[in-house]
């Protein structure tokens, strides 16, 4: 175990997988000479050379499609979006090519590719650079969507994503790159995709959170403990396929659920989780499922407004108290 930042853990995962498999290569804007816009790819150019660590022109649709094509014939590309905001330009290739290729070819062409990069809110970067994209990608069968919340998860999940034979959307939270945590050194340390983790066990209410909301949910759980409310915090880690069983199991125990997310509420992942809980565990619920989401507006620039747009510990605490009727 070593203590490192999320960014270092991601770097380690990429480095180890590139050593392990010569078919793994990395491409994206500023990943090589600049050492990564967020320094996730620091040192990789020096270690692996420009054949495998490739700076691309600013041409997201083009290099996303190029990656998918390379994956069709057996390579394992890691395509970095400098931020997931720019993936919007590449969605045709991600959705129409990567997600559907295996199905429409009758099982002949798998697409082992990882699209990764920072997503979610950042610090005062305005509406076009600050948005949560996971519900877009999670909508499409054929894609897997992963969002780590700790450095250890980041390493284990990214390694699994790179080894996986399907296209994986791997969204790192921009605000969390500097977060520190213990990370196993083992080169074969992987975390299976599609498996949720109970980050904190509890009995009175379940908080389903992901990514940036996990540390906040854990803080909220601490506060609620003071009030005598024991919260279970679940991190699905993989948004699709969603480990709904772990969530349902928890709901059956606590009978109360809050889903916390920084994304917009409308048609969001929280809405999906809420719907599935209602369908599968309605009789176990003692209160309606409550969502805590980002405010339903484009991200404002002003610091005070931005702070209001992203949910915090206070909102999660209030929501849990609401479903617990205290």
């Amino acid at each position, binding site marked *: 175990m070593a203590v490192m930042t999320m960014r270092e853990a991601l770097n380690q995962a990429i480095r180890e997988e590139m050593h392990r498999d010569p078919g793994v*290569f990395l491409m994206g804007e500023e990943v090589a000479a600049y050492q990564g816009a967020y320094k996730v790819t620091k040192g990789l150019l020096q270690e692996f050379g420009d054949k495998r660590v490739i700076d691309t022109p600013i*041409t997201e649709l*083009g290099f996303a*499609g190029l990656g998918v*094509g*390379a994956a069709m014939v057996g390579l394992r590309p890691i395509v970095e979006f400098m931020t997931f905001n720019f993936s919007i330009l590449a969605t045709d290739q991600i959705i129409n090519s990567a997600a559907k290729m295996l199905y429409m070819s009758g*099982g002949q062409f798998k697409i082992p590719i990882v699209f990764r990069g920072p997503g979610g809110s950042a610090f005062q970067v305005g509406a076009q650079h600050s948005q949560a994209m996971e519900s877009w990608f999670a909508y499409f*069968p054929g894609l897997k969507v992963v969002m780590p919340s700790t450095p250890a998860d980041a390493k284990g999940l990214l390694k699994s994503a790179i080894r996986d034979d399907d296209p994986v959307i791997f969204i790192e939270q921009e605000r969390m790159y500097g977060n520190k945590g213990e990370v196993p050194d083992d080169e074969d340390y992987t975390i*299976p995709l599609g498996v949720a983790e109970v980050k904190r066990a509890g009995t009175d209410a379940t908080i389903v959170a992901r990514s940036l909301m996990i540390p906040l949910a854990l803080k909220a759980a601490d506060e609620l403990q003071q009030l005598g409310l024991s919260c279970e915090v679940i991190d699905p880690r993989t948004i699709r396929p969603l480990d709904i069983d772990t969530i349902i199991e928890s709901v059956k125990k606590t009978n109360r659920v809050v889903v916390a997310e920084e994304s917009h509420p409308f048609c969001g992942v929280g809405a999906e989780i809420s719907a599935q809980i209602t369908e599968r565990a309605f009789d176990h619920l003692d209160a309606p499922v409550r969502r805590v989401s980002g405010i339903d507006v484009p991200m404002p620039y002003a610091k005070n407004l931005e702070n209001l747009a992203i949910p915090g510990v206070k909102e999660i605490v209030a929501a849990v108290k609401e479903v617990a009727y205290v």
Partner: protein
Amino acid sequence: MTTTDAKSRSASAVIEAEPNEAGLDEGIAQLKNEQKERLGGLDRETLLDLHHQMLLIRRFEEKSAEAYSLGKIGGFCHLYIGQEAVAVGAISAIRRDDYVLTSYREHAHAIAKGISSDAVMAELFGKAGGCSRGKGGSMHMFDREVNFLGGHAIVGGQIPLATGVAFATKYKGTDQVTLSFFGEAAVNQGAFHESLNMAQLWKLPCIYVCENNQYGMGTSLERAMSLHDISRKADAYELAGEFVDGMDVLAVRAATERAVKRAREQYLPTLIEVRTYRFMGHSMSDPGNYRTRAEIEKHQLRDPLKLFSASLLETGTVTESELKEMDQKVHEEVERALQFADQSPEPAIEELYTDVYANPLGIDGPRNR
């Protein structure tokens, strides 16, 4: 660097000089002469094979139209009639282990790359015996065995994919080349420009074959493109560009051979503009009110099959009776394909849920909604 020179532009002059019937006749005569000259370089077996493939595609498409109107083929069905010399000429210039990616007008490329007409027809019918097991349809045919990497149905979407396949072959150090076919309307998409830029920047062995049939659905090239001379767009990215007459199968083959040499030996891309014409509608549901009967008939005078068979006959490469015999055999093959497709079973119900993920993790399928 550009290889666009006076010689490769000459066909352009022929096509564009169509003010009257006399000019057209002259053009056809010139084309026949050029074709006859080229015949000399190829053995009889190759020539007959080229003719056979074009004929097979023509008859296959005629049969597809028939089956479509009988309701045996669903959805969209984009026929290739009139453009046969392009797919056949270009694909005849590559090896079996080279790659082909194309658009939704793809039956011809699939057949030319070596997928059986049985498997192509069965795919059109949505049957288990189809080359994509009935899950792709007219616009999404694939066959790993012959490196046919698909029909792709978002205009221009296959161009970055093909560029990626070429990237991978260079990465792996093989000498395979990748052919990417697309219509002229795709040239207006960003995907085209982004791909050409990367291909030349990184020296990727990809050959971009623009099948300029002069209409993007019902919109003529003139109404959609500011610079009509598509091969010149290669200049913007400093890659080799060629113009070639798409009604001349041997010219298409020769241009592709030059591009293949560049790709195989130097890892260099090429843009080939192939001027052609589609005799049928955009799809089976096209009312065709955007062009005149006379315009279509004018182009039908330059029917690639008729021009090639005339050259074969005039040079004594083949006799009338041999051609008739070939046509009869092709008819029979297409009839067999139809029967195969008819008799092939529908995909099993379980197929609905398979192939969504290569690694389904045990919790996908109907449960993971």
